[in-house]
């Protein structure tokens, strides 16, 4: 494993070997049964499998239960503002393309207060992995309706049931120009979760992964039927998508879906019945913002010389 650091000017010899414990930060304070735990474990496994140097890895989050994620990793982390993880991550990647950037958001974070940034981050297509940990409810602030709350579900803010049909984040993301990787997985199927995170990490560009999750306190029964009846879940399978051979026996409701087919992806995402997991869309050919905006760095001396030339245009 030879991690590179562009700022130090080339590959550095690194003989360290990392295991999952090397990525463990503080003890997670999420509720027992919270879906966030599974994502954390999967992520630590992924980083160990990929042997990412902890100091070269950055987790950016917003505010909410899921946004405590970086504290529980032993990498660099930025636990910022509600809804504003994506601009911070964009700044990190623009300035330091050598870093591995992950973004962790909740459904309130990404699809409500930060929805504008979501749309534009998809369009920028900067090279990062963005996770939407979607439990369809506000947990940290105690049981308020989120944009992904099922219609009719009662909460503290909409006690007679939510008024509107939920926003589908996968469908929305697939509608945004320049989307390059859109996938959906579920926290209670760890093998699929891991394979999806891995595929997202390996995609060069903005990888958007919606993770379906339970909130054991405020949304405990949301996926009860899907968990009891595997056939309620349709697995999107393809050689270019997520392949999880060990799940084939349990999940027989499979659909071969070519992730290069955007029209088919949009049709599948628009289906109102059932749950589909897998890679909806992937296009490696889309231009990556940090590549487009890559500018060769200048030394201080070069900058001063060039600035003196520029000032000549203003000389009296």
């Amino acid at each position, binding site marked *: 494993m030879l991690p590179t*650091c562009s*700022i*130090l000017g080339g590959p550095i010899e690194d003989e360290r070997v990392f295991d999952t414990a090397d990525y463990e*930060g*503080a003890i997670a304070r999420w509720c027992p049964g919270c879906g966030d735990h599974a994502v954390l474990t999967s992520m630590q496994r992924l980083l160990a499998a990929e042997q990412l*140097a*902890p*100091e*070269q890895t*950055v*987790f*950016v989050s917003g*505010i909410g239960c899921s946004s405590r994620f*970086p*504290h529980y*990793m*032993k*990498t*660099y*982390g*930025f*636990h*910022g*503002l509600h809804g*504003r993880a*994506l*601009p*911070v*991550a*964009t*700044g*990190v990647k*623009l*300035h*330091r393309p*050598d*870093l591995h950037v992950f973004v962790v958001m909740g459904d309130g974070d990404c699809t409500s207060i930060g929805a*504008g*940034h979501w*749309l*534009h981050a998809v369009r920028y297509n900067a090279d990062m992995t963005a996770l939407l940990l979607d439990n369809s409810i506000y947990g940290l602030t105690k049981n308020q309706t989120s944009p992904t709350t099922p219609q009719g579900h009662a909460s503290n803010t909409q006690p007679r049931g939510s008024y509107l049909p939920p926003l589908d984040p996968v469908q929305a993301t697939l509608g945004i120009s320049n989307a390059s990787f859109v996938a959906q997985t579920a926290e209670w199927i760890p093998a699929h979760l891991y394979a999806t995170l891995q595929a997202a990490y390996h995609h060069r560009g903005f990888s958007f992964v919606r993770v379906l999750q339970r909130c054991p306190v405020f949304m405990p029964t949301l996926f009860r039927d899907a968990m009891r009846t595997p056939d309620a879940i349709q697995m999107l399978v393809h050689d270019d998508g997520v392949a999880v051979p060990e799940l084939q026996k349990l999940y027989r409701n499979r659909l071969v879906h070519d992730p290069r087919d955007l029209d088919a992806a949009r049709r599948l995402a628009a289906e109102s019945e059932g749950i589909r997991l897998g890679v909806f869309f992937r296009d490696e050919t889309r231009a990556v913002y940090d590549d487009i*905006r890559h*500018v*060769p*760095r*200048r030394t*201080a*001396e*070069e*900058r*001063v010389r*060039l*600035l*003196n030339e*520029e*000032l000549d245009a*203003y*000389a*009296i």
Partner: protein
Amino acid sequence: MIASAPAQTERVAAAYRTVPVPLHTVEIVSDSGEGAQKCAQIFGTVSAKMGNGVWTVEIIPAEIQPPARSPAGGSGNRIRLGTGRVTNWGDDANLIVAFNEQVLLGRHSLGALAADATILLDDSWATHGDPRIREQWSQAMTELATREYRVVPVPIEAECLQVVDNARKGKNMFVLGMLCWLYDRDVERMHAEIHNTFRSKSEQVHATNLALFERGRAWAEANLDVRYPVPAEPAAEPMLVMNGNQAVALGAVAAGFELLAMYPITPATSVSHYLGNIFERFGGVMHQAEDEIAAVGVAIGASWAGRCAFTVTSGPGLALKTEFLGLAVMTETPLVVVDVQRGGPSTGLPTKVEQSDLLAVLFGQPGDAPKIVIAPSTIEECFHAMVTARRLAETLRAVVIVLTDANLATGVQPFPRPQLDVAWQGAPLDLGPVPEGVRPYDWDPRTGLSRRFIPGQPGGMHTLTGLAHDENSKVAYDPIVHQRSSTARSRKLAVLQQMLRPPEVNGEPEGDLLVVGWGSTRGAIEEAVERARAAGHAVSSLHLTFLSPLEPGLVEIFGRFRRVMTVEINYSDDPDPFVPPSHRRLGQLAFLLRAQTLVDVDCWTRVIGEPLRPASILRAIHSRLPDGGAA
């Protein structure tokens, strides 16, 4: 002033007087889109290059395409020319060139013209085919006749039509030629500057521009009976001439910034127009974000992951950035924000100057969010403020706000060419391992300073958080940590305060009245104070550059004057029987100074969408002097 019939083009040699003047103020106003601003920019630049002192102010309508021939829709510039240094836009225009009588009325009704101003006015409207226009013209003449103006009709349109088919596209170059003769400007420099301004245009356009310019010059020489050369004294040292936003952009390069994230907003945007064009050559990236919030978020993310980044904005954008500014303070992420102030609140006066954001930048965050605030007072200081700001932001892990304004942003002024220093660029990123035992917020209890860890540094892994946190950047479940960390963040300002020098008093160190200002009003305040002193009054002035922390020694300085007042471009109640003194709302600096010094600081402020005039300040000074200023 007319030496012969306007239509006559044959030159009448030596039929004019030459009246050298040490200081003259000229305005050029047109409908929007007729190019008065281009004309004025070239005139101002050439004058600066000849060695004159120059201060220019844009006259901008709020609309992109205001109706033609409307008093509020006039677009152009005021240029104040001097033999010596010019520090402000002066009082009234001595001469105005107007492309129609309606935009002229706009300036007249704002009191922009001197009582004896000379008016060069396109008279084609007098005989226009539309009877309503002829009626408007004659009404305007009646109104102008109530003053002592000298109105000189000029056949601008007719003359231009000799060269071009569409006079709207040519009047500005004709007028430039006229002004070139009138003020005895260097013709060669004029030609060069016209060429430079339109360098992206075709040879054909260039030839047309020169023909129009020469026609204007010839017309003036043949028809005008007086010219006002403003003698120039070329500076002994190399000089530059530019506007404040160009100075901010070039200062940012000199300061070693490598990333600007912004969202378009008047009057800050031109910084990004310029850097968008040149920044990549310097290894920099100019990112136009999806909104004001994202712009500051990108800058903070970049700053956290590397060298300090910056953002530029104005009032409404500053309001949107509020939460992120609090985060940057809380996480001690270096950040520089340039706030080009305009009239507010809300959308306010987008193109007009105001100094109304001082309290917002100081106190705009919920919670205690100490920031460094500096206010350049000249174009030159706009350049150097960027170097200071980056250094302070990185050294103190702090947010630095640079408060400029619309007057500085668009005003053009010459200043000594900075001797660039490689050290201004700051140190390259050090990604060496974090020493054993050092914590992410190892606050020095005396200074509040701590060492910043940057992603990529082995051994430095931690999660930065906007939650109250301890020295290890762990979320503070023990509330006493919040007292300790708040003290550390505040202590950094105390450290900076002790490094600042007391400000210098302009004038005698004691007297009856001290006028205190900040930002772009410096030149106008000092000119007013000098006039008051010349009239025998014991008046001095003080200009503050650091507004947070405040410069030291203010209590001692204020104590040597019988009265202290601020002069600012923001709202305050005028002394009024309806408002008891205890409840009078004060200018923003006055509010701050009273709180910090316990001195009974008075204020005089205006929010009329233009820079302050020395004569207005002088009247305010008189009103505050013990004897009402009757010397």
